[in-house]
């Protein structure tokens, strides 16, 4: 496979995953705030700030009043904002375009449909009463794309590259969502016991990552900070967890680099090393310093992505 095209496929995988998480974050936060148990969580400004925080554009100054319409437009459909959903999907399509001869017709057709759906969506309808419809469609269409990737492509190195992108991005987005929501939990504390630990925002966090139902079945308890973080970071069976994503990255890395004796300078070595770190992490350590876990995770993921770029995409 061409190095340039591999790069395109990697990023196609990343952008598919990214659009989905952003869209879901918007929907879940907006709608769960409507009937949240406390005033802070109900506040529209609180939700808008959380959205900006998650997308990577945090506004520290809490006295600034955000316009709902403007924030939603910016994150959803603003063609001039590089991180908007519409630009994510445009990037999916552009990356798919230049790898068009390698991906299946079915996958390409779905990407194209997705793109046309978004580019035709009326921003007025979206900001007024279309948020639910728009974001739901984005998450579902992303799921369709993931399905097409899995079922219409050979599970060879093309697939491995896409899945590397998907899983690195998934881990990245999950950790960013954890970051944004734990931040929210500090502000919107619970009403009993350890108020941070019992914040309503942990439930929202699980919903933002589509893991609430799984988590309830697993712990059979109201989510707290510890159980939520343990589930989302360390549980290898939770398909949205960091651990699971790293396991996936490791698995697909082996297709690209089947050497068993790894060069210490290779991406495969780095992936194995990061994976091992999480395998032997305990929730106690995480609880002690959530922020530094978030930061090092983001750093490690970035490092893996950089290493891939050097080793496979440009030389």
């Amino acid at each position: 496979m061409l190095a340039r095209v591999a790069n395109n496929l990697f990023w196609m995988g990343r952008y598919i995953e990214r659009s989905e998480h952003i869209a879901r974050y918007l929907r879940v936060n907006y709608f769960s705030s409507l009937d949240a148990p406390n005033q802070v969580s109900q506040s529209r400004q609180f939700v808008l700030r959380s959205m900006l925080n998650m997308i990577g554009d945090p506004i520290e100054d809490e006295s600034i009043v955000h316009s709902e319409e403007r924030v939603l437009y910016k994150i959803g459909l603003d063609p001039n904002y590089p991180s908007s959903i519409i630009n994510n999907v445009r990037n999916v399509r552009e990356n798919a375009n230049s790898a068009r001869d390698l991906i299946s017709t079915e996958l390409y057709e779905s990407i194209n449909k997705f793109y046309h759906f978004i580019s035709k969506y009326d921003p007025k309808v979206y900001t007024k009463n279309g948020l639910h419809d728009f974001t739901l469609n984005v998450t579902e269409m992303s799921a369709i794309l993931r399905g097409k990737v899995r079922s219409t492509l050979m599970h060879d190195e093309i697939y491995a590259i896409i899945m590397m992108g998907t899983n690195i991005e998934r881990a990245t987005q999950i950790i960013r969502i954890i970051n944004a929501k734990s931040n929210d939990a500090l502000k919107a504390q619970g009403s009993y016991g350890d108020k941070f630990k019992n914040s309503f925002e942990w439930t929202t966090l699980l919903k933002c990552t589509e893991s609430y139902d799984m988590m309830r079945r697993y712990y059979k308890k109201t989510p707290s900070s510890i159980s939520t973080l343990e589930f989302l970071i360390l549980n290898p069976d939770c398909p949205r967890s960091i651990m699971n994503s790293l396991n996936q990255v490791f698995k697909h890395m082996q297709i690209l680099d089947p050497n068993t004796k790894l060069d210490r300078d290779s991406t495969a070595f780095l992936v194995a090393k990061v994976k091992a770190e999480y395998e032997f992490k305990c929730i106690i350590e995480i609880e002690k310093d959530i922020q530094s876990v978030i930061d090092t995770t983001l750093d490690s993921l970035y490092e893996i992505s950089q290493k891939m770029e050097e080793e496979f995409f440009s030389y």
Partner: protein
Amino acid sequence: MVNLENQIFSSYKRNPVLFDEIFDKNGQVKDVYSKLFTLYGEHSIKDYVNLNEKAKSSFFNQGITFQVYDKKKTEEKIFPFDLFPRIIPPEEWNIIESGAIQRSRALNLFLWDIYHDKKIIRQGIVPMDLISSSANYLDQMNKVDPPGGIYNHISGTDIIKHTDGQYYVLEDNIRCPSGVSYVICNRTALKRALFGVFNHYKTYSVTNYAENLLDLLETVKPKGVDIPNVVVITPGMFNSAFYEHSYLAKTMGVELVEGRDLFVENDFVYMKTIQGPQKVDVIYRRIDDAFIDPLEFKPDSSLGVPGLFAAYKKGNVTLANAPGTGVADDKAVYTYMPEIIRYYLNEEPILNNVHTYHCSRPKELKYVLEHIETLVIKPVDEAGGYGISIGNRLSKKEIEVVKAQILLNPRKYVAQPIMSLSVHPTYIDKTESFEQRHVDLRTFTVLGKDKEFVLKGGLTRVALKRGNLIVNSSQGGGSKDTWVLKT
């Protein structure tokens, strides 16, 4: 009179001066179309409105689109597809196919000759001007033997049917002829929309193009290569024909590369893959000569591969089509095609040529200037229908402008009598009815070493504006599925 019982053709206006592909002079449906005519008549016009919309969105969703360049922006458009297929009966197809092969082979021998001994010029059969004042003649190709002796691996021949019912060749495209992917997409689209009609006709399949192309490209591999690594090179996804480039790569099962994916080392060509450099042996290039190697040709181009021409000249890589093929694409060469065919093949031309006046010859220039309203004026070196003036469509003022242009550089222009392209019923969106529209046919011929292939079908292009004779997609043309019937 048109059969009025057939609802969908009840408002079909038949201009008796034009050659209609379906109806004869008396308005009777020709035999070969009669079944199709009846089948289509079973649908109401509403069905067509519906089917037409479906076909459009299917093209759009599949991303079978091209970009149109405007002064301000580029726009993504679909190449309009018409629901009514064109049928070519076997006896007519035999003429087209053998004629297309004859022309491609003659052109190939012509190219070999003008890049080697130039016998045809020495013997005074064609003027030296054809090479000495052609911008497309590459001195660097002199005495170069392309692998397998093939220059024009892929030729697109544009053929029309005149009012006399005869086929005429309008142009030979042997630089980077495009459109073959639409032949296949049109077939797919028509099958999706009206699969029932296929049961009643024995039509040749068009899906075997890619395998034949790959097969023939492998016959012209460089010396010493066992199983050649073939790639398609594209200028990139912003090129108007990018869909076709990716389609061809995909259906051949080969890599689609851009210039930046390749590099040359020790006069061998390699592509950058995730497993490291991989040697490339045959390049089907969809980039014009001037852009293939910035160190040898246009220096400010980043589309090509630095050093590629040196690798080619050394015989380490095959380029299809060969560099310098464009010289035979020149409209001035076209006018000598009958002589060229007779000279190299010792055969009479199978397909007619349109008589051409050379503005470079004083006598003919005079005739052209005096009869401009009965002629089509064409620049010799433009592709895609750009710069064409049709005499009887020009105002007096415009005629003067065209005359002045010709006088400024007579070598640049040729003129031909206005040929009347045949017409074919075509579904028109605006009026929601079938109307007569002019059509042509582009055939695709592939030459390999001692082997050749003509795609049994071809691209029937339709001028969608009423009365318009220019069918190019860049000028608002559409296309039809084209059926070549089995005997």
